[in-house]
């Protein structure tokens, strides 16, 4: 999974005092200035990856692609991403989802 700073794990212990304030301020500024850009960049990469995976491993989803030699070569590297790729590709998308980039 791609890691972006300031992600919080569920039920993480809260930081208090001056350190907590500093974390909050940093988070707000990050959200205000960069979060949208980071999400947009991730989505751009996602679309590129979808295209690449479709071209090489589309037969897994029923697309009529002749399995090329290179599909087998890259298979060990893409195996960890196949489940997430299938889920994302098959997820129903609506025009209001497009607002997020």
């Amino acid at each position, binding site marked *: 999974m791609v890691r972006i700073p300031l992600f919080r794990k569920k039920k993480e212990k809260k930081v208090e005092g001056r350190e907590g304030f500093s974390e909050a301020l940093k988070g707000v500024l990050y959200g205000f200035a960069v979060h*949208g850009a980071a999400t947009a960049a991730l989505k751009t990469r996602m679309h590129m990856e979808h295209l690449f995976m479709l071209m090489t491993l589309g037969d897994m989803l029923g697309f009529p692609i002749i399995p090329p030699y290179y599909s087998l070569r890259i298979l060990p590297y893409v195996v960890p991403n196949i489940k997430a790729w299938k889920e994302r590709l098959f997820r129903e998308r609506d025009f209001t*989802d497009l*607002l*997020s980039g």
Partner: protein
Amino acid sequence: MQVAFLETPSMWIIGALVAYAFAYYVYARWVDEHIWEVSERRTTPAHMYLDGVEYFPVSRYVLYGFQFKSIAALGPILGPFIAVAYGWLPALIWIVIGNMFIGWVQDYSTIMLTVRNEGRSMGPLVYNAIGERGRKILLAYLLFYLLIISAVFIYLVSLFWNVFPGSFIATIGIIITGLIVGELLYKYKANIFGVTALAIILTLVSVGIGTVVAWPPKNYFGQWSVQIWSIILAVILFIGAIVPLPKFITPMNFVAVFPAIGGVLLIIFGALISPVTGIKLLQPAFKGWYVENVGPLFPILFVSIACGAISGWHSLVSTSTTGKQLDVETDARPVGAGAMLTEGLLATSALAAYMVVSPDLIAKGKISAFVNGATLLTAPFLGGEMSKAYLLTFFSIFLVIYAITVQTLVTRYWRVFSAELFRRGSWKILGNKYVATAVGLLLPIVFALTGSWIELWIYFGGSNQLLAAMALTLVAFYVAKMRKPTWYAAAPAAFMTLVTLAALLWETYVFGLVTFGLRKPFAKPPLTSYPAAAWALNVVFFFVGIVLFVLGLYMSYALWSAYARARRGEVEAKAVSP
């Protein structure tokens, strides 16, 4: 110079702060605990569907900053300009009451709708409530809505560039800064702190160059100046809509963040210390129930201040992104309600800037009123007379960036919505990337030819608030399915449905009078020299009003019917317990 506390905007800002604190700590907490029964133990879509791209848990502070940045635009700043025509008191009452009982309710509840419905955005939520036809009508409605926003924002940016000498140069400076920052960040992987410092310095230098050069002067292109500025802006927006986000829009918006935050903080601080700086209220508290060329206080006041009190745009942001990235349900209140109430504070501060300017400026409809008011509030603690010229340029650029950063995204959304709507059939060409963008810019420019931005703003406010009313009705529908009290969403939904349909009907009626020759067309020079063209555009606005009203009426009827069915128990109940 010190003046009586009550004669300054300070007391009203403090009063609004107290009201917003009550809304957040008492009312919102009650809704959070008793209606939605939020729990840290319930898994959110961010965890359930975690993919690191669309669904991932994000810190509440990051999401708060993101939500506020996504919802704050020109609405809370320019809306009070129209509303203050009735006096500052009705405007203040609407901003405070709207935020306390309607605005945060929508933003918070739509986030919760997405969280409790497997991360679905507005379209699928509408589909579940009223079916495929409702979803398609929502798409058509949103296209008209984007068209009206574009017409208003394109006209206003062009007007700002025309009225404030130097603001165009400063804007270009910020765009160039954005391009440099983009290259440094994405291509050369430069250090973010260094790049941010460089962005702030270059932005301040751009404003300084704009102030010193103060070129081009007002009406530089003659009587067609505003229209020519619109075409220049359209070229910039066209590039923004077709090139990849990280190349243009993203870095430009990143750079624009700093003057945007700085301006808001300066105005709030200036309003709070106004008893010390001696800046007094000059506007009358109440002027009347009817204002010529604006309309009756009911319903126009409630749509003129849009995003500062409630806005349908927020429901789109809440459901399409924020709700999918909420770490725990208990974060919905600080993110949704917190960001909305902060925007309410921004609207109150903007109103403070209008309170302290001469009533003449408002009466004559001078768009420079905000810039003058903000400069009056801030100059006393930023160098006095010496800094006034710089601050005038700074606050003019403040207006431009709030409009232009949203407009770049709106143009892009128009393009992707058009691609969705016209992907098949004989109209397929309209879904083409370049054609859709060109149409999405050309139509608003033609609309803006009349120069009657206040009438267009009322359409924008009406359609935006009606979208909010639909979102609130949708919330009431889902809360009814949960077998929980619905009044907290249904009552504001009923009020907003009534008020926005009335406002759209009023504006359609006004353009109808023009259409049937019972009133002079709304037009400003140079279009006044072409009465037939002015009349034709007013006729187009009449039909736009009819379309918006009919689509809005259908959606409202369908959603209220769904809500009634849910209340009667004809819709399958949904559990709320973890």
